[in-house]
């Protein structure tokens, strides 16, 4: 995709370096001369925003680790110490805690962008699967990070989530004991979660490098979903993509700062400012907002399916909802990538988006709450059904029965047609 390198070292030092480690050439080819489709919209800036958020989380996290103590008797107080005593501790902790939420907001936009424009389709299958792996690692990192303040939600979140494993027949209980290092969530659990919480971001960074590598082999998708055909279809990454990325990073940082400075606890739970108490469960346990749709799917399965009891069924459905993403490149049978040219897909896609938000809402309420005249759990069952129908039935079938609109000849042609005089746009 990137063709031959255009980098020419100019200085003597540059030439000396080039002959020994051509890293400047690599960076130049990756972030300066790399050709990007000229029709990318703002949704394509979220990859850069995510890279920025990973750096923010690693930097703030390393600083927090200098003041935090992973020991069950003092963990809670050490976090309070960060908030009250450590110079600027409140800022760094709020940046880190809200940074996790911002990271997920950005990743969900990034994922829905890929879903709509068919960015998972050939030849970008590996690119997509690497993204799913990053998403899984992010969820593990976020869950373990949430346990560290050792508040009530930390403790009971850890208890409920590690208990998922007890749903497995025979091996479930020993696996859970192995994971938490005891008969209940305790100091051993806190210590290992801290260790892994520190490790995972660096694993994520490693997979991100693979993700970008794969991206640069196959090239970026674009809103039209058609392949780049000539140099006319592209512009160099710098300054075009760079400036657009930076602009949207600034917008995103304003949004992030608004939460950090004006609503720092809006996305959290008050119960987590109560120290963990193994003898008392909070009345209403809810995960962080970014897990709510999956939590709703977990609770939706309250019936036995043949030999699978409701507990195991819920856990399987929840993990299945994430695993199905990895198979998406082969589940969607349509040859056309972009949703712009797929009239029926468009409807199913937007319904999927609304359904995902609705699942999130259902995850936040009690299962027996009445919504639109029915119990929340009934709605959760219907929403879960649509979630899986979308991937397992609608996308495979649509490729055969849908008649897509005609595709433009090239990206350049489409842009010229749009700006031509007399055009309807």
């Amino acid at each position, binding site marked *: 995709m990137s063709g031959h390198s255009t980098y020419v070292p100019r200085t003597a030092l540059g030439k000396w370096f080039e002959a020994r480690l051509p890293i400047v050439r690599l960076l130049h080819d990756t972030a300066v001369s790399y050709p990007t489709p000229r029709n990318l919209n703002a949704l394509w800036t979220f990859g850069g925003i995510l890279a920025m958020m990973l750096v923010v989380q690693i930097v703030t996290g390393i600083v927090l680790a200098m003041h935090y103590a992973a020991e069950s008797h003092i963990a809670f107080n050490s976090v309070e110490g960060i908030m009250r005593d450590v110079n600027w501790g409140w800022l760094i902790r709020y940046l880190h805690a809200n940074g996790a939420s911002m990271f997920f907001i950005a990743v969900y936009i990034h994922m829905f962008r890929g879903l709509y424009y068919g960015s998972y389709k050939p030849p970008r299958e590996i690119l997509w699967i690497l993204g799913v792996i990053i998403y899984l690692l992010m969820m593990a990192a976020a869950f373990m990070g949430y346990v560290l303040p050792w508040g009530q939600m930390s403790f009971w979140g850890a208890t409920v989530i590690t208990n998922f494993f007890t749903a497995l027949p025979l091996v479930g209980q020993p696996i859970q004991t192995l994971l938490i*290092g*005891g*008969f209940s969530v305790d100091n051993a659990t806190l210590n290992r979660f801290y260790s892994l919480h520190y490790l995972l971001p660096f694993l994520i960074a490693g997979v991100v490098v693979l993700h970008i590598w794969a991206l640069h082999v196959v090239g970026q998708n674009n809103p039209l979903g058609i392949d780049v055909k000539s140099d006319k279809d592209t512009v160099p990454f710098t300054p075009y993509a760079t400036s657009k990325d930076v602009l949207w990073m600034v917008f995103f940082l304003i949004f992030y700062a608004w939460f950090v400075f004006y609503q720092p606890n809006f996305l959290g739970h008050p119960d987590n400012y109560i120290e963990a108490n193994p*003898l008392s469960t909070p*009345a209403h346990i809810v995960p962080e907002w970014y897990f709510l749709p999956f939590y709703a799917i977990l*609770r939706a399965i309250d019936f036995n399916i043949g030999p699978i009891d409701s*507990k195991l069924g819920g856990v399987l459905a929840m993990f299945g909802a994430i695993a199905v993403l990895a198979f998406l490149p082969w589940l969607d049978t349509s040859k056309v990538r972009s949703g712009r040219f797929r009239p029926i897909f468009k409807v199913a896609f937007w319904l999927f988006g609304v359904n995902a938000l609705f699942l999130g809402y259902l995850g936040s309420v009690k299962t027996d709450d009445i919504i639109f005249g029915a119990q929340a759990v009934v709605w959760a069952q219907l929403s879960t059904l649509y979630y899986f129908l979308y991937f397992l039935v609608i996308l495979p079938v649509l490729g055969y029965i849908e008649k897509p609109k005609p595709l433009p000849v090239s990206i350049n042609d489409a842009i010229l047609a749009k700006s031509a005089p007399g055009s309807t746009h």
Partner: protein
Amino acid sequence: MAESDTPAEPTRRDFLLHAAGAFGVVGVGAVAWPFIDQMNPDASTRALASVEVDISAVQPGQAITIMWRGKPVVIRNRTDKEIEEGKTVKLEELKDPLARNANADAAADASDANRAAAGKENILVMTKVCTHLGCIPLDESGEFGGWFCPCHGSVYDTAGRIRKGPAPENLPIPPYAFLTDTKIRIG
């Protein structure tokens, strides 16, 4: 690598390669186990696996909760009414038909007698951890007058048996023994 397609006699290099490979596999396995098993609870955690409790002050209708293996264990001195309610339930109405009593036979049914302490039908000793996802049920609540789990709405009766909600099993009864008439050792 192979210079001809015909299988040749094994050479010294083949032998060394296979011997080293086999050695490596055994070595990786031997090192992997300590790295997995270190995550399991160690001997000091297991040593806490038994506690002694004096229940002489627990009057009928009262309960105490103590910690055993990091989990709450409730010891309830049940009232006559609670015992009566526990006894009148038909076994076929129960969601989980087994006693789940570590001191009784694994196949014992969930009758009130199999759930209560042997010879002391007023004393009920149970791990107060919901069998659904591990939350702590509330005492003296729920529509069966026993325990109610606030997390996902499981309801247990006066003998700690699951009656309603997503939990699959009755509250488990830990191994325990009466040391004297008023002293219990759990674990």
